[in-house]
């Protein structure tokens, strides 16, 4: 399958991920989540929340009791846990390793968290196990990367594209 088509095959949309995480967050804080609470948290209308929740209820991700209080099913909770972990991993990768500002890393991680595959997330976990191991090679790896990063602007000939033009030239600075 072409990669771009995978976006449509994704189990949840960006919006759905935020609805599910809002429920998780509210249940953690208040012990319950109502449509009105989710609407306030996400700064959208109640109508919009209710319409968005309909397919999530049908998919068995969200459960509603007789008081119209919402909670995540086991399946929904597993999905939220996975998305949250992916967000943290991507955020760490962007800010700690690549030097992206924490704010920008959070924004970009939010965009990628629900689209990243479990396989990629598991490789990121393995990578951070190495980084956090405090073994000498991990420290050396980080130090080498940081030293290279500081001086990389001075060597445009070592551009990763290896073609006529440096990749950085095609990506304007913010």
């Amino acid at each position: 399958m072409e990669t771009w088509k995978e976006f449509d095959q994704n189990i949840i949309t960006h919006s759905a991920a935020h609805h599910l995480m809002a429920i998780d967050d509210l249940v953690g804080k208040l012990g319950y989540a109502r449509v009105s609470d989710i609407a306030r948290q996400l700064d959208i209308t109640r109508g919009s929340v209710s319409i968005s929740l309909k397919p999530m209820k049908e998919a068995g991700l969200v459960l509603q009791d007789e008081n119209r209080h919402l909670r995540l099913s086991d399946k929904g909770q597993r999905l939220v846990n996975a998305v949250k972990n992916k967000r943290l991993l991507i955020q760490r990768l962007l800010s700690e390793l690549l030097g992206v500002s924490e704010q920008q890393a959070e924004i970009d991680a939010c965009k990628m968290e629900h689209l990243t595959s479990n396989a990629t997330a598991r490789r990121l976990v393995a990578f951070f196990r190495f980084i956090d191991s405090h073994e000498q090679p991990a420290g050396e790896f980080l130090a080498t990367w940081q030293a290279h990063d500081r001086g990389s602007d001075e060597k445009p000939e070592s551009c990763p594209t290896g073609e006529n033009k440096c990749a950085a030239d095609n990506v304007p600075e913010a």
Partner: protein
Amino acid sequence: MENSVSKLSTEEIAQELNRAFAEEVEAATRYLHLRSAVRGLDRVIVDRVLKDAFHETIEHAENIAQKIRSLGHVPKLDIRVNCPNEPLSGREALRQALIFEEEALECYQDLLKKVEGDVPLEEFVRSQIALEYEHVAQLKELLVE
């Protein structure tokens, strides 16, 4: 600015009314979409209902905007509507309409608790509740199997 009767300040009341304004405008947009998404013979049955509901919802939104202006504020609108390009049966369109109409009704019911003591505002919210209640009842009646 302090509001002498209600528990909320005028600023907070305007904020709450802005939420109701967004509910109504969004509902109107959804009605517009639902009306165009219903296919086949069902159109004959539900088109009029959805069209009337669209116009009534716009009227509700105008009433709220007027109320916000009367408090000395300018209505704020922040909505994000995403309606898929999938055909709908008449029943499904009415089911969706019932979902957001029930939310609008609850929005006014919550607002009523907050503006307790401010008689003119209470009366306004009560009249909106009555209208929304009618909408919900009509939709439920149409959805009876």
